C-alpha cells in the first residue's frame, strides 16, 4: 500500500508541479514585455519599409537602365541606317568615277574600230605597223571587257537606247534630227552612255532622237 500511496503522492506532486509551471508560463505569456514587443514591431516595420524602398530603388534603377538601353538601341539603329545610306552614297559616287574612266576606254576602243591600214597604189602601211596597231587594239578591247565585267559585278548595267523608243525616265534628249525613214521618237545615236545601278538610274543616257513632227 505504501508503494501505491507513494506513487499517488509522487503523481500529485508531479501534477501540481506541472500545473504550477504551466500557470507560470501562462502568466509569463499573459504578461509579455509590451515595450520590447512594441520596439520589435517598430523595428520589423522599419525593416519592411527599408526593404520595400530598396526594392523600389532597384526597380527604378532597372527601368531607367532599360530606358537608356532602349534609347541607345534606337540611336544605334538610326546611326546604322545613316551609315548604310552614307555607304550607298559613297558607292554611287565611286561608281560615277568608274563610269568616267569607262567613257574614255570605250571612246578609244570605238575609234580604233575605224582604223584601216593604208592600201593605195603608191602607199602602203608597213605590215609590222599594221600588226602593232591590231595588237594594241586587241589589248584595249581586253581592258575594256575587263572593265565592263567589273561594272557588272557591281550591278551596274548599260542603258540600252539606240534604236529604242525614247524613255524620259532613263534618257535625256540633247539633240534632235529628222530622219524620215525612221519612226518618230526613236533614238538615233547615243551621245553619252547611261547606266543603271541596281535598277535605279546612275547616270542618264544622253541621246540624239528622231523628230519628224
Amino acid at each position, binding site marked *: 500500500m505504501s508503494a501505491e500511496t507513494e506513487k499517488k503522492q509522487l503523481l500529485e506532486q508531479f501534477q501540481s508541479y506541472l500545473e504550477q509551471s504551466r500557470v507560470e508560463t501562462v502568466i509569463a505569456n499573459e504578461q509579455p514585455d509590451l515595450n520590447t514587443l512594441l520596439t520589435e514591431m517598430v523595428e520589423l516595420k522599419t525593416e519592411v519599409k527599408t526593404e520595400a524602398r530598396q526594392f523600389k530603388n532597384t526597380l527604378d534603377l532597372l527601368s531607367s537602365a532599360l530606358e537608356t538601353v532602349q534609347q541607345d538601341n534606337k540611336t544605334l539603329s538610326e546611326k546604322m541606317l545613316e551609315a548604310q545610306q552614307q555607304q550607298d552614297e559613297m558607292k554611287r559616287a565611286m561608281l560615277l568615277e568608274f563610269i568616267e574612266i569607262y567613257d574614255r576606254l570605250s571612246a578609244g576602243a570605238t*575609234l580604233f574600230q575605224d582604223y584601216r591600214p593604208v592600201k593605195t597604189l603608191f602607199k602602203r602601211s608597213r605590215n609590222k605597223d599594221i600588226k602593232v596597231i591590231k595588237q594594241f587594239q586587241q589589248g584595249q578591247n581586253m581592258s575594256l571587257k575587263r572593265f565592263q565585267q567589273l561594272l557588272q559585278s557591281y550591278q551596274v548595267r548599260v542603258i540600252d537606247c539606240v534604236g529604242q*523608243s525614247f524613255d*524620259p525616265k532613263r534618257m535625256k534628249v*540633247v539633240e534632235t534630227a529628222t530622219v524620215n525613214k525612221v519612226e518618230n521618237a526613236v533614238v538615233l545615236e547615243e*551621245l*553619252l552612255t547611261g547606266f543603271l545601278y541596281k535598277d535605279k538610274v546612275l547616270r542618264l543616257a544622253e541621246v540624239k532622237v528622231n523628230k519628224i513632227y
Partner: protein
Amino acid sequence: MNEIIIGIDLGTSNSEVSVVEDGRVTVIADGDKKILPSYVGIDDGGNLIIGDEARNQYLLYPERTVKSIKRLMGQNTQVQLADQSYSPQEISAMILKRLKTIAESYLGQTVSKAVITVPAYFSDAQRQATRQAGEIAGLNVVRMINEPTAAALTYDANQAEQKKLLVYDLGGGTFDVSVVNIEQGVVEVLSSHGNNHLGGDDFDQKIIQYLIDYIQTTYAVDVRLYSKAMARISKAAEQAKFVLSDQPYAQIDEEYLLEHNGVAIHLSVELSRMQYEEMIEDSINLTMDAVHIALKGAKFIASDIDEIVLVGGSTRTPCIRERLLNEFGFEPHDEVDADLCVAMGAAIQAAMINDQQVDKVLVDVTPYTYGTSAIGLLNGESYPFKYEAIIHKNSVLPSRKTDAFVTNQDGQEFVDITIYQGEDLDALNNVKIAEFRVEGLLDVKAGNTILVTLELDLNGILHVSAQEKATGLIKSITVNNALSQAESSSVKAATQRISALFGKLDSSLYEQDKLNNEQQSLHPEIENAQQVITRAENLLDSVSAEDKEDMVTLIEAIQHCIDDEDIVGLNKPVTELNDIIYYVES
C-alpha cells in the same frame, strides 16, 4: 496641335519643299533628290510628268513640255500642253501639287497649308497668280514671303536686334539682289534689282566657247559638228567650273574626243581660275551694278549693310565672294546650302506662323581659318611670313581647298610648308600646327608652281599636301585634332593669366614658363623636341600598350634632357620617339 504647314520654293528652274519638325528644318527629298526641276510635260501615254522626266524630253517634245513657267506668271496668256491650253497658274499648280504629294508621303499625313516664296519684285498680279496656283493644287497659301526674306530667316530666325542684310541670289538662269531689314523676326524688303537672264548657265557657255575656240586653233576642227564630242565638252565645262571653285587650276582631259582624218584627237587643256574669272568678268560686273542700284534704291551705302547672304549655286564662285568682300569689307554668309536656303526659310516662316519652336539651323563649320605663310606684302612692305588663308573661318565642313604658290629663287631645291591656324595677316602671330619640307624640286627658274591643298573633315582631321605642279611630286602630312589645337594652348594661356591675377603662381606653370623662356633662346633642338613630345602625346591614346610604354619612357627621358639643357643627350631619344611616331602614323 496645329495643322502642319509646309514651305515651298517655287523657282524658275528648280523647286523644293521643306518642313520644320521638332525644331529642325528638313528639305524633303523625292527618293534621293531634294530638287525638283520646274518642268511639266505629257508623256507618250498621255500622262502628266513633272520634274526630271519632263526636262529629259523637252527638246523632243517642246509642244508638250513647259519650262520656266514662272516667267509668265501674272500674265494673261495661255500655254500649249499637248493640244490643250493652260494658264500659267495651272501649270504652276501641277508643280505645287507634286511637291504637296512628296511632302505628304514623307510626313505620312495630308497637307493642306503652305507658305510659298516669290521674288521680291513680283507685282500684285504675279502674287495673285501664285496664290491661285496654290489653291488649284489644293493648298491654302497661308502666306507668301519674298525669297530674300526666306533666305534671311535661315540665318536669323529669332533675331532680336535690328540688322540690314544684302541678299545676293545668283541661280542657274536669273540674278536677284535685295536689301532687307530684319528685326524681331520681321523682315522687310527695302529694295531689289536683278537680271532675268543672267546665271550660272552663262558661265558654262563661256567655258564651252573657250574649248571650241581652243580646238579650232589647235586642230583646225569645228567641234560643233560632232554631237558626241559636244556632249562631252558640255559636261567637262560644267565640271571644270565646279573644280575652279576649290582649286586654282582645272585640267580638262577628254581623250579620244573625236576622229579627224582617221586620227584620234585628244583634248588636254588647263584652265586657270584667273582665265575663268576673266571670262565671266562682264557678268559679275553686271551683278555688282545691280547691287549698287539696289543699295541706292534703299538709300544706303555699302557700310550700312551688316551682313550679306548668298543664295543660289552659282555663288560658290570665289570671285563673287572676293568682289563682295572688297565692296563691303566683310565675308558674306554661305554656311546654309545656297541651293536650299530659300525653301528652308519658307518652312521656318511656316513654323513661326504655327507657333512652333524653330532651332537655329545647325551647320558644321570650322571656327578657325587655316592657311600657310608666304612672301607677300604686309602693310605695303615685303614680308616673308604673310599669312595666306586657304580654308576660311565659317566654311562648311568637310572642306577641301587648294591654293597656288611659287618658288622665289632660281633653282630652288626645296620649300618649307608651314600650316597655321588663325586670322592674323602676320602668320607668325597665328598658331603653328604643322610643318614639313618638300625636297627634290625641279632645277628651274623662280616661279615654279607649288599647289598647297588643305582638307579638313568633320572629325577635325586636317590633311595637308604640297604638290609641285610641273612634275606631280607630292608630299603630305596629317594633323589630328586640328580643330582643337588652339584650344589647348589658349586654355594654358588663360590659366596662366587667371593664376597671375590671383597672385598664385602654380609651381608647374612656373616651370612651364621657364620652358617657354628657354624656347625663345637659341635652342631649336629643344623646340623640335617639344614638338615631338606634343605629337607623341596626341597619339598616346591610339597606340598599343607596349608602344605607349616605350613612348612614355622616351618622353620622360627627353623631358629630363630639356630640363638639364642637355642638347647632346636629346638627340638619341628624340630620334627614337620620331621613329615610333612614324611607324604608328603610317
